[in-house]
């Protein structure tokens, strides 16, 4: 009887050890990918910050004209660009962002543009209309893809298919902390202080304000989506690294626990054998 239980424990230890090896390997892969993604985020961040602030400066300073990109519409048709990962085993990375989108889209007519396999699968199962499922592989989406996406969205926005456009992504705060966020892309709204002031701007638009906006807004969208993608990629690797690190630790704890049980069972078996021999002689 004792023999059977030691054997079972031994099997469990062995399987736990192979699990630990896998999680350890995944952690190391994520760590090396994270280093690359982190470098990319740091090098591209100035672009998005400047792009964002420049566009908002222009919007705040604008008194000269109105553009469909600037006017708020009352409709409820909303488009979300949702950036998630291709694979699971990354802690709460995928579920956090998807939950946030579902909560935000509750009483709106939402259409999504999912990036990453997990997002595509999720919205498929929820039967939420998708613009395209072409970006099911988040790791291979390029800058060019982001600009194509942005042009497409702008065209549909101008055609009145959507009243608002958002991007949902995970902000890479640090290696240990990532926060899911929803950022409004369109319409561009004026900040509150700017709305109060009535000073005329002396901005020169070359050739004219409408054309500048028509050309610049898709660029802006594309740039911001690409930035969000970079942030999300780094956040995914960071989340996976943390999740796999704690999985490895848990496996180690369990192995230690099981080894102790195994040794106790082995000792008990030996003691029993000795007792049997002593009694028998």
């Amino acid at each position, binding site marked *: 009887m004792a023999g059977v239980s030691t054997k079972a424990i031994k099997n469990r230890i062995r399987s736990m050890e192979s699990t630990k090896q896998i999680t350890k390997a995944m952690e190391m892969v994520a760590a090396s990918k994270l280093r690359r993604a982190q470098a990319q985020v740091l090098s591209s961040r100035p672009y998005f910050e400047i792009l964002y602030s420049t566009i908002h400066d222009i919007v705040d300073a604008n008194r000269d004209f109105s553009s469909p990109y600037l006017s708020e519409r009352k409709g409820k048709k909303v488009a979300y660009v949702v950036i998630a990962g291709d694979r699971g085993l990354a802690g709460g990375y995928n579920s956090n962002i998807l939950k946030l989108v579902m909560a935000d889209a509750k009483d709106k007519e939402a259409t999504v543009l999912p990036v990453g396999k997990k997002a595509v699968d999720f919205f498929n199962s929820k039967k939420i209309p998708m613009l395209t499922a072409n970006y099911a592989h988040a790791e291979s989406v390029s800058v060019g893809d982001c600009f194509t996406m942005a042009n497409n969205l702008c065209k549909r926005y101008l055609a009145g298919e959507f009243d608002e456009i958002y991007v949902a992504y995970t902000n890479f705060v640090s290696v240990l902390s990532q926060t899911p966020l929803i950022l409004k892309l369109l319409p561009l709204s004026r900040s509150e202080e700017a709305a109060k002031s009535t000073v005329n701007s002396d901005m020169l638009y*070359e050739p004219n304000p409408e054309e500048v906006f028509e050309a610049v807004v898709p*660029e802006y969208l594309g740039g911001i989506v690409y930035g969000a993608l970079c942030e999300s990629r780094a956040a995914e690797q960071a989340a996976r690294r943390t999740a796999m690190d704690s999985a490895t630790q848990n496996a180690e704890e369990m192995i230690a626990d099981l080894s102790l049980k195994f040794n106790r069972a082995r000792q008990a078996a030996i003691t029993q054998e000795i007792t049997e021999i002593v009694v028998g002689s």
Partner: protein
Amino acid sequence: MNGFPLKIVTPDGLQFDGIAEEIVVRTTTGDLGILAGHINCIAPLGMGQATVVIDGQKKYAACIGGMISSVNGSVTLLPTTFEWADKIDVERADASQMRAKAVIADKNSTSTEIRMAEARLKRALIRKNVANLK
């Protein structure tokens, strides 16, 4: 010559941050030159060559897409791609030119394919031209 603070940032990183004396870029409606003390302005960029004068030295670059803005004396260039003449990969531009030409010559190409190939060809030609200027 008076200088002005210039920032050139692309999605790939900061390309330049410092004082420049002059910048000429190709906008959608033609070349636009900016010197110190320019009026606040903003213009979308086309595809073309950018010339930046830093410390009296002319530097050339291939600059494609994006926008340029001058606000309160400081100029920000936000192109989609920006490559200094000495960093241009001429072999890649050559390969891209060949591919684009093949698509345009192919009678079976659709109009979108041809349009994209033409844009690619133009980019490749700009890169090669700029690379020859260094």
